[in-house]
């Protein structure tokens, strides 16, 4: 059982609001990732981090930003949410080895009205 947690589980907000999606893992993993997934579709990598103070953009352009101040914490922020941001956001982590399976959180389902 992976120890990676995402909050909130569901979030409904109005357009223009600033939001932060939380992701924490207790496994001491160096690598953390954010994926975006629309219903029934594949996961798209939007951000990842290889350690503290390291962040990289993924393949899918995203208006969100991330930070990695602590190993266990990798929050994702939207400064001004829009309906086009409505989606599921999945956080994942893995150890420092280059080829490792990712452990996923349960996701945050975001709805922007």
């Amino acid at each position, binding site marked *: 059982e992976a120890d990676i947690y995402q909050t909130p589980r569901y979030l409904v907000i109005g357009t223009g609001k600033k939001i932060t999606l939380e992701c924490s893992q207790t496994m001491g993993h160096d*690598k953390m*990732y954010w*994926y975006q997934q629309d219903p*029934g*579709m*594949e*996961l*798209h*990598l939007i951000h*990842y981090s*290889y350690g503290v103070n390291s962040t*990289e953009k*993924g*393949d899918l352009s995203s208006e969100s930003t991330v930070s990695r101040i602590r190993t266990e914490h990798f929050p994702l922020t939207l400064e001004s949410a829009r309906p086009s941001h409505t989606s599921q956001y*999945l956080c*994942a982590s893995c150890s420092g080895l*280059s*080829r490792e*399976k*990712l*452990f*996923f*959180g*349960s*996701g945050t389902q975001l709805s922007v009205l």
Partner: protein
Amino acid sequence: GESVGLHLPTLSVQEGDNSIINCAYSNSASDYFIWYKQESGKGPQFIIDIRSNMDKRQGQRVTVLLNKTVKHLSLQIAATQPGDSAVYFCAENIERGQAGTALIFGKGTTLSVSS
């Protein structure tokens, strides 16, 4: 661009049958592949992985086959059970230079198992 795709969006089987889910990948340099299972409302869950120096790997009721010649990956589930109903994704590990590696996912196959 690089992509990992699945041949069929849905697969329906009877309980007890064997299921085969296919995946085609495009990056011949990929050397590590994973199958994930995602149940409704949950994050993806690891099923089995395989490195490119292998053709086959077996787990409990699952087998992954890798054909590097045609860049094809398949997941076989023996004696499929209703609890196997989920969306299945294949993913390949892509090198990103100094940024290391990241998993790229295919589109997913929804497996429905009827009793």
